[in-house]
């Protein structure tokens, strides 16, 4: 019997038990669609993060407290991380800023602090993330481009001035397009004058950058004055184009290590951030996929179960086929192919389903789930493998039936 004839015969057998076949495929449909959905969303998130990191600008280096180098792949995956150092805010000191300032490779830099608090204008309240930055932050934070008014200057340090993002303008003044420059808004008992607004960021898709909508900016020293400390949470540095980014990051790190221990600070390039993100994502994807695979096993057992029922029901047919000259191999091929057709149909419906889920996901989060050729190949591979593994035993049972007994079966 040719391969094509066997496929045709399998399709007829499946079609003549439509409801049963569909119910049997359900496990495969759910299994394949959950695996494919998770893989495609994982890929989508990675692409999104990659575009975010490249949108930050070029030649950027970030100094953060705590050693997170263990999370990047480039260091060989040493996961011994002291998490306590992430939240310690008093590691980076003004002296470090002075050190960085002296380096010829550094074009711009800005220290950054974060506070939480609430703002009010007349009867409207906002609860933004209050970010203290230095004037050069406009060069080191990509989305920070001035729309109306101006950004801070060195003279503004310590003054009660504020720069708003469009979303915060909307919350406080009711309209994104409102020009609030010169307006006085309250933070606690302190009055702040709005000196500028930043542009709406050009793309809305990045989940990571959604924080940006929630920010307002204050001069760095002003934040220190409010919090009563000289802490620095992060330092953003833009390297001069004439220098190699990796070498410079290494140099900054070594310079800072003269006054810090190894687990106190991390110096990251954009590439490092991407590596970190990708390793976190791949671990998450693998874990969730492993859980989703359980449903594939359940689906496979369902296929095996129904194939065993089908073999028993069709005992007489097997007897007839053997009587007219089918070999054990032909019978085996027929039932194995039938199982594979079942799992592949289930897989195809599963992929279609995850395509639908991807569309909904994109509408909800603006992240495009990526179903590419590789993903389709994965689904096909999964389906065929499950079909073979769980179809083999029923097919073997069918092939080994005694023709005389099979013909007598009622």
């Amino acid at each position, binding site marked *: *019997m*040719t391969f094509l*004839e066997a496929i045709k*015969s399998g399709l*007829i*057998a499946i079609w*003549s038990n439509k409801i049963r076949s569909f119910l049997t495929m359900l496990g495969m449909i759910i299994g394949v669609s959950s695996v494919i959905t998770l893989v495609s969303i994982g890929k989508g998130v990675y692409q999104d993060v990659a575009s975010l990191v490249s949108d930050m600008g070029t030649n950027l280096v970030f100094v953060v407290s705590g050693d997170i180098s263990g999370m990047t792949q480039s260091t060989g995956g040493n996961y011994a991380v002291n998490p306590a150092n992430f939240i310690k805010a008093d590691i980076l000191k003004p002296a470090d800023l002075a050190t960085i300032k002296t380096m010829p490779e550094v074009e711009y830099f800005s220290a950054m602090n974060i506070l939480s608090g609430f703002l009010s204008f007349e009867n409207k309240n906002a609860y933004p993330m209050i970010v203290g930055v230095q004037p050069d932050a406009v060069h080191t934070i990509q989305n920070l481009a001035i729309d109306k008014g101006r950004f801070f200057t060195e003279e503004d340090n310590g003054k009660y001035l504020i720069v708003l993002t469009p979303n915060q303008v909307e919350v406080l003044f009711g309209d994104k397009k409102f020009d609030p420059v010169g307006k006085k808004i309250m933070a606690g008992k302190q009055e702040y004058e709005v000196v500028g607004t930043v542009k709406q960021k050009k793309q809305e898709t990045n989940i990571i950058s959604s924080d940006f909508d929630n920010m307002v900016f204050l001069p760095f020293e002003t934040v220190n004055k409010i919090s009563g400390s000289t802490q620095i949470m992060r330092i953003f540095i833009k390297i001069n184009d004439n220098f190699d980014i990796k070498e410079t990051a290494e140099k900054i790190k070594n310079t800072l290590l003269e006054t810090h221990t190894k687990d106190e600070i991390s110096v990251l390039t954009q590439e490092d951030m991407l590596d970190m993100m990708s390793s976190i994502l791949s671990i998450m994807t693998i874990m969730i996929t492993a859980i989703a695979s359980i449903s594939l096993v359940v689906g496979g057992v369902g296929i095996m179960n129904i194939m065993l029922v089908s073999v028993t029901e069709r005992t*007489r*047919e097997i*007897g*007839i*086929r*053997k*009587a*007219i*000259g*089918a*070999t*054990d*191999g*032909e019978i085996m091929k027929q039932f194995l192919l039938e199982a594979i057709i079942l799992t592949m149909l289930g897989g195809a419906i599963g992929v279609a389903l995850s395509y639908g889920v991807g569309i909904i996901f994109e509408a909800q989060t603006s992240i495009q789930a990526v179903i590419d050729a590789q993903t389709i190949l994965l689904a096909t591979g999964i389906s065929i493998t499950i079909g073979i593994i769980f179809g083999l035993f029923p097919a073997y049972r069918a092939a080994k039936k005694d*023709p*005389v007994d099979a*013909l007598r079966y009622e």
Partner: protein
Amino acid sequence: MDKKIIELKNMTKVYVQGEAELKILQTINLDIFKGEFVAIKGPSGSGKSTLLHIIGLLDKPTSGKYLLEKQLIDKKTKPNTLAKLRLKKIGFVFQTFNLIPRISALANVELPMIYSKLENPKKKAKQLIKMVGLAERANHVPNKMSGGERQRIAIARALANNPEIILADEPTGNLDSKTGSQIINILKELNQKGKTIIVVTHDDEVARVAKRIIEIKDGRII
């Protein structure tokens, strides 16, 4: 006409059920010549169906020899060898027709030719169905056909790979006498065209058509 096509020598068939041995067939010696029309008669339980199954290669002898066109078949013969011989040399016709219910009459007749990888099985199947007089019913499924029609399709299927031997197990058992006679006539015609036909039957009319009658009782030819 005197070429031996089937030779059984001291052939026995024993089924083991737990402790007991059931001797179904005992020391069968039988020669059947090419072009014969043989009827095997006997009471139920006499072993005549088992004899037909062994001749038809669905079952193997426990001891003794079976030569099918000089090819030796004994208990050591591999299932695959038997399947391939069945495919080429033997056509079966059963009492209960044994057509596959899900597929059309045409597809049923095509099936043995698909297994033997014959070219253009559909064309040949149509010719065979036309020959048994059911050309206009070829695309119906067996369940939509009468008993007589089903048996004619079964005969068409038995002829698919142009086998030497047609084996029929009570071919008229489930048919009324009129359609039964039609089936007997078809078998008779096939015999006249040179096919060797072996029929297991209770039906005296079938036995009358046969040129030789073999009677079996308690597993022995009498």
